[in-house]
């Protein structure tokens, strides 16, 4: 199903929770077709059963409808995004607390987290399991490319069993510590089917060599896709931001 262009933003946020985008489905189908482990195949079977069920009943694929992050130009102001998020989360699970100390539910899933820096408005919904598997690491600028890639694959292999593999991995190298993780998350908005670079293929191969497999049930599909992008950075720093999304990558572009 194609997401309607005329849909309200709040409706679109609700919609992406039930209907996965084409590039995500492409990778899932590929993994289901080439998975060699029996348990891994079984897990992929559950994934497709779930996708079918969610589309048919128009219910969220995952109960963790997470927190939504927006990436877009300033014309979509804070008030607009808050209102649309509030409306959307009336139909989704309230997964936010007012304070990490009191743990009282927020009841509105606000504020919407907004990072500017794009021509069109894109958004990503990620659950807690995926959010927990993120990294900001300040490496020594003396590190070679090889070492940076080793850090990335090592981190993903360590975390993948917890964030519903097969996962999507987005990495930003460079920038500043306050921006690098957002830069990484934003990479997931693009159509991920673009041909991978040598670096990306290498990291993907390394991760998939771990044998963690779909759901951590064993197999060769631990990651579906790796995106790595470089950004200019200070001569004395080497920030690395890693964002991992579960197989259920929910995202959308809003043109309204």
């Amino acid at each position: 199903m194609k997401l309607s262009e005329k849909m309200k933003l709040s409706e679109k946020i609700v919609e992406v929770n039930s209907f996965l985008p084409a590039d995500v489905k492409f990778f899932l189908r590929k993994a289901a077709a080439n998975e060699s482990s029996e348990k891994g195949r079984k897990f992929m079977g559950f994934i497709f059963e779930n996708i079918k069920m969610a589309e048919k009943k128009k219910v969220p694929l995952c109960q963790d409808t997470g927190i939504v992050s927006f990436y877009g130009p300033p014309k979509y102001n804070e008030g607009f995004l808050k209102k649309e998020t509030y409306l959307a989360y009336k139909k989704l699970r309230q997964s936010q607390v007012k304070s990490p100390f009191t743990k009282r539910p927020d009841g509105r899933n606000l504020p919407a987290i907004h990072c500017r820096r794009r021509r069109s408005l894109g958004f990503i919904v990620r659950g807690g399991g995926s959010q927990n598997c993120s990294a900001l690491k300040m490496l020594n600028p003396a590190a070679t490319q090889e070492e940076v890639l080793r850090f990335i694959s090592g981190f993903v292999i360590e975390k993948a069993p917890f964030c519903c593999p097969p996962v999507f991995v987005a990495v930003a190298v460079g920038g500043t510590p306050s921006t690098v993780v957002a830069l990484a998350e934003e990479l997931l908005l693009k159509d991920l089917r673009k041909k991978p670079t040598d670096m990306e293929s290498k990291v993907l191969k390394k991760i998939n060599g771990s044998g963690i497999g779909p759901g951590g049930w064993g197999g060769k599909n631990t990651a579906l896709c790796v995106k790595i992008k470089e950004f200019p950075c200070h001569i004395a720093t080497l920030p690395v931001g890693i964002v991992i999304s579960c197989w259920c990558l929910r995202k959308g572009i809003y043109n309204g």
Partner: protein
Amino acid sequence: MRNSKKVLLPTSYSLLTKLKVGDFIKISGKIFAARDQTLKRIFASGRKFPKLKILYFCGPLERQGRIVSAGPTTTSRMEWAFEELIKMGTKFFIGKGGISPEAAKTIRGRAVYLEAPGGCGALLASKIKRSRIVAFPELQAQALVEMEVEDFPVVVAVVKEVACGNESENKKIEGHALGRKNFSPCL
């Protein structure tokens, strides 16, 4: 589905402990959904919850009073509560993802860890026939919920005594799994 045994709870408790790691089963019966804050509140309340034999780590999503999506949440986040829960009488944990070797040791021989397919909230919600909030409604998604499930699919991850079902196959997997502290020991 192939190899999927049906297990009716609580009558087949003994059967469940005889299962091997990696076995797929479908459970039917009453389970309780709880997670991070639910467990904190259970312990803090001092109340006895004798019926929490099967704990499902889950924060369901409701629409108009009906659960529409209810997949498992990350089990490793609840490891701190394992010991106490087992002492309280929990025999089965259902969740998703790996657990540490220490947590697996805590469980082994005393309880069973079952993994449900992560991210499959819509599918798993369709296996819930009835549900009701038992305690802590103010916690919303983290309230203690009783669910009656039918043919709820899970895979056995940590089981009584037997570390791994198929020794040779599991050794291979265990080789890379146990070397890393965060991987579920046998799957």
